[in-house]
């Protein structure tokens, strides 16, 4: 549960937005591993930008531990969307593009012939589907599946009240700009009403559900004939919203290398090799996804040989214990991921409209200590994060925050005094009746509580009093209403910079802190229009500098991705978006 809580509010927003650009994290082609047998690139990744499931040794069943039970085949509904379902979708559904562990985006050569940009203005993308690709029940995997993905997620089918929609997708990113057309069964054409650079990120596997099943269940003869305004849309939507909930094997054919075998509610899901899969057959004959919420229990199950692969939330204690298991043949890898913890200062609060106060707060937070005590146990090379817009491994990364966050309480005190604050009898600064005191709000995760304790401790030395506001529902219910003084949470980061725009521009959809800066507003929109990467990065660097100088939002550190597995499985790695099962068919079991 912990993982899904940490990111739940964010998972909803980022669904289907695998925004795209070429700034991956490097890594070799044709598969590669680093010391310890941890994957740095997919085995089936080819130099020409194509991915094909590789030929691997056939092996036994693999048991994978994850946090919370599988709930639905349709992971794109607002009700159902959760990371645990993604882990299972990875196994049984296929998609036009495959995102490698190093974030390279490759054409999925097992199911697609080509995806081409056939026009620039307007942007037209043509999907050419490979002939003979089929679902595990024998039906063709083709244009109607693409069409359904669009119909369900474009948000165009409005109810008569004009406000709410028939379909309840978790997100509509990208699909809302599209006018779709099925030229023939194997050719799908999308015309965009405005340029959308991240087109490779949509029609992802979780969206590509079996349209023929929906047709059968709703009695609609051809889903591609259903438009957002046709009368059939209501029953199509009703089925799409709820029809795939739970586990009904006959409604859940697979298009990926595995197909469903069995399920026990709240306990496990088991998939086996899909004999109708057109590519090279999967390595493991079966994969069982077993849910265990407690990370320590997951570790013990791995240690006890009941599980082969686990990817619990990275905690130093657990990481240390997993490292120690190497003598028992347990592999361990922890690498900085794309998700980062940060502090958002709420500009709607008078206290934080005072720039000197923001500066003092930034100066008293001891990021080095936080990283030493909370992160280094997982990843010994960890450092405080210096940018809101780039991860440390990215080419555009420039550390603007270390300079403004010197971890110096004395300096913070001087900053306050220079701005007219005076220390009260209780050792806390005050100015004009306003005490230097506020709350940091966060969800109920031990690491966050510890982070706040460390900040409390160092800022108290600076005469700033911080209260800990732990609320298990903070991310689900409060953060997006701006109901906080300072919020501590993580953005599920990605190399796709378009996602950053709504967070920081004035009035942006995710700018919950009410931040506004002219320079940022000028630079950020270039992520949509600027296709030259170096120019775009320079713009983002200027925006980042402006935000650092404003003490707007304070990045702390990036969270490591942790995966641990028994040494009888190879080709295992952790994908920052798709998790441990992103390449399950490539696993070789001995």
């Amino acid at each position: 549960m912990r993982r899904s809580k940490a990111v739940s509010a964010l998972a909803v927003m980022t669904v289907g937005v695998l925004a795209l650009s070429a700034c991956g994290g490097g890594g070799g082609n044709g598969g590669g591993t680093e010391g310890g047998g941890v994957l740095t690139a997919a085995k089936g990744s080819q130099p020409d930008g194509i991915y094909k499931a590789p030929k691997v040794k056939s092996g036994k069943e693999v048991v994978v531990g994850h946090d919370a039970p599988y709930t639905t085949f349709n992971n794109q509904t607002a009700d159902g969307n959760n990371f645990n379902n993604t882990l299972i979708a990875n196994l049984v559904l296929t998609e036009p593009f495959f995102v490698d562990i190093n974030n390279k985006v490759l054409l999925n050569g097992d199911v697609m012939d080509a995806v081409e940009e056939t026009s620039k203005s307007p942007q037209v993308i043509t999907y050419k589907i490979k002939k003979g690709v089929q679902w595990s029940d024998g039906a063709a995997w083709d244009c109607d599946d693409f069409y359904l993905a669009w119909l369900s997620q474009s948000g165009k089918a409005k109810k008569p009240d004009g406000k709410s929609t028939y379909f309840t997708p978790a997100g509509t990113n990208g699909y809302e700009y599209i006018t779709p057309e099925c030229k023939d069964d194997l050719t799908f054409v999308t015309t965009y009403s405005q340029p959308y650079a991240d087109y490779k990120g949509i029609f992802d596997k979780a969206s590509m559900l079996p349209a023929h099943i929906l047709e059968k269940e709703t009695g609609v003869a051809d889903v591609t004939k259903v438009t957002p305004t046709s009368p059939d849309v209501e029953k199509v939507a009703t089925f799409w919203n709820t029809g795939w909930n739970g586990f009904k094997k006959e409604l859940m054919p697979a298009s990926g290398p595995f197909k469903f075998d069995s399920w026990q509610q709240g306990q496990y899901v088991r998939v086996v090799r899909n004999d109708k899969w057109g590519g090279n057959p999967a390595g493991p004959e079966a994969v069982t996804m077993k849910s265990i919420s407690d990370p320590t229990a997951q570790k013990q199950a791995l240690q006890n040989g009941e599980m082969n692969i686990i990817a619990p939330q990275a905690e130093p204690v657990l990481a240390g214990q997993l490292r120690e298991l190497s003598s028992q043949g347990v592999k361990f890898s922890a690498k900085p991921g794309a998700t980062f913890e940060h502090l958002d200062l709420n500009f709607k609060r008078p206290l934080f409209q005072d720039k000197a106060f923001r500066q003092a707060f930034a100066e008293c937070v001891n990021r080095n200590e936080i990283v030493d005590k909370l992160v280094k146990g997982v990843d010994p090379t960890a450092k405080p994060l210096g940018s809101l817009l780039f991860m440390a491994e990215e080419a555009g990364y420039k550390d603007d925050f270390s300079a403004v966050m010197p971890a110096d309480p004395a300096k913070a005190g001087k900053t306050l005094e220079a701005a007219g604050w005076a220390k009260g009898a209780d050792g806390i600064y005050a100015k004009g009746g306003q005490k230097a005191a506020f709350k940091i709000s966060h969800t109920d995760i031990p690491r966050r509580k510890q982070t706040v304790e460390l900040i409390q401790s160092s800022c108290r030395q600076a005469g700033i009093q911080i209260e800990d506001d732990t609320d298990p529902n903070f991310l689900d219910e409060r953060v997006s209403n701006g109901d906080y003084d300072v919020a501590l949470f993580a953005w599920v980061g990605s190399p796709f910079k378009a996602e950053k725009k709504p967070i920081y521009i004035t009035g942006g959809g995710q700018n919950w802190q009410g931040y506004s800066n002219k320079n940022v507003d000028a630079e950020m929109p270039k992520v949509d229009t600027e296709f030259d990467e170096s120019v775009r990065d320079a713009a983002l660097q200027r925006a980042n500098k402006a935000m650092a100088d404003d003490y707007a939002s304070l990045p702390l550190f990036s969270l490591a991705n942790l995966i641990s597995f028994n040494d009888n499985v190879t080709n295992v790695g952790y994908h920052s978006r798709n998790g441990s099962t992103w390449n399950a068919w490539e696993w070789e079991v001995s």
Partner: protein
Amino acid sequence: MANPQITETPAAGAASSSYEFGTGARKQWQTILRRFTRHRLAMVSLIVLVLLTLGAVVGAAFWKYDVTYTGGSSFAPPSAEHPLGTSQIGKDMLALIFQGTQYSLLIALVVAFMATIIGVVLGAVAGFLRGAVDTFVMRLVDLFLIVPQLALVAIAARAFPSSWFTVAIVLGLFSWMQVARINRGQTLSLSEREFIEAAKALGASNSRIIFKHILPNLTGIITVNATLAVATAVLSEAALSFIGLGVKPPDTSLGLIIIENYSQFQDRPWLFYAPFVVIVLISLTINFIGDGLRDAFDPRQTKVRA
């Protein structure tokens, strides 16, 4: 006080009847006390418990680190500087345990107090009034026992802002059932006795009979069960915290400290054992004290409890 012998000497002119009554009362009290002090295990337990409590309160006041200190290194092993080592963020474990003990005891006392008040009043009223009231109260007890207490508390506590006090109040609201049952039984048999008949005949009101005649006679049972309720409450709170639905930071408790550290049971055993030993000691000593009290109040009763 300085010279107890003097008070023993009857003062001239004192009304002899009231004097005799006073001595009688004191004698009974003294007998109980003497029986209790002779119960060696109970006395040792009492001393240990008092020392633990004092240690947690006085120790916390004088110990060089408080719970806001985070200056130690991560998971330092026990040393002269940090006798129980440090936590992940460098807090002094001894300071944390002092604080956790205080919270645990505080919660347990609130719970025991509530359970006793509610249980005794309902039990006595039901046992004395009988009839419809009795049936009602006993059905209420059945009703409250029908679902595990842990679940009820977990759900009910959600309705309130989380703090140690709400957790304690809610636990108390769902902990009175056994006390009520026992007190009802005793009251039933008490109300058959002559002195109650006499009070009734003299026209005493129901509330007067309950408060002046029945409750004083329940003292023994109330004391024993209140004591045992403290021990139970310490453990209930720990269980609740364990599933993450109990006390939340910044409040703490021994249960919470164990939970934060149990995964290191093998690597850094002191982190687990220190709070564990304290919680077991608290619960164990209170159980023994309860036994001692029971024997002291009612020597006929067997020494076992289940």
